[in-house]
């Protein structure tokens, strides 16, 4: 329950961050959240929303691609890496 609350809070912070945070801070938070929470699908939504907000047709949707890479990397590495 505690974890879920924390996750919802992180979602709200990241969603607001998608709108006004500088790209490097948002990227850092997305990577951190992707590795911290299990199966963090939300990161994909954040990437897409960021690209819809600031990208344009013709530009590669960098945030969506990075979010996808984070999600894949976290899915693979999260079960194999232990933090002590």
């Amino acid at each position, binding site marked *: 329950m505690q974890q879920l609350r924390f996750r919802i809070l992180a979602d709200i912070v990241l969603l*607001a961050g998608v*709108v*006004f*945070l*500088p*790209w490097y801070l948002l990227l850092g938070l997305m990577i951190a959240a992707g590795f911290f929470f299990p199966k963090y699908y939300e990161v*994909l939504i954040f990437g*897409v*929303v960021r*690209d*819809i*907000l*600031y*990208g*344009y*047709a*013709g*530009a*590669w*949707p*960098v*945030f*969506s*691609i990075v979010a*996808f890479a984070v999600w894949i990397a976290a*899915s693979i590495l999260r079960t194999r890496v232990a933090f002590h």
Partner: protein
Amino acid sequence: MTYLQRSNHGRRRRILIPFVIVLVFSLLVVWLHTARSSLVSTPVYFLAYPIWKIEDFTLGKLDAMLTAFASKRQLEEEKNLLEQKLKAAELAAYTADAYRNENTLLHAALNRMGSDPSNFVLAYVLEGPPRTLYDTFIIDVGAKAGIQTGMRVMAEGVVFGEVVEVGGNIAKVRLHSAPGVQTEVLIGEESARVMAEGRGGGNFIIELPKGISVRTGEAVRLSGEGMPAIGIVGHIESKPSDPFDKVYIASPLNIFEVPFVMVGLRVNE
């Protein structure tokens, strides 16, 4: 001994779900890269708009509070502002009064938009580079103020972008200097028509045949009658072995610190 047959259902699902996610996501990336629908972007802008406004309001208040304690910073900002104004004045000297008079006469004759301020809409920049990563601005006027895609965006007499998406109260401006964006410009004494490629952050590069003479500090104008400047020649790289010179163009505007812009002048109008 009898063994129960293992069900493949769970395994198949485990493979299928990531496969579907990858497929959907790839399609999404392609969609974002090629065609974007306002059906999706309009609700996103609608949700983001209050956050931008709150951020703007909060930053404005904070700035006002901090000004009293930050005289040094204020002096530095003032210096930067004066430097920007000096650059703009340099550019104005190049484009000169002769150009302006000629433009006014031609515009009047052709009954087109000119330097008349009523043809432009003043807009406040809500978000812009480097925060956005892409060379895009979000401005606080949209379809309700008559903004349409394709409109040119200017600041201090320099054209630096074009409206690419329009929402109700906001619009997205793509800078001409966005990486990979090709813009037709006029350069040199002969007004040679060449393509300038965006390099991000208000910079361009032009591959110019050696026969065309260009000097550092010259203004580069958008192609088209009466179009204003997009930048000035900053550096020319010439190699004897290369039939082309590389001309580096820089916007006299600091695009990272543009608070207001003017929107107007439709493309090809």
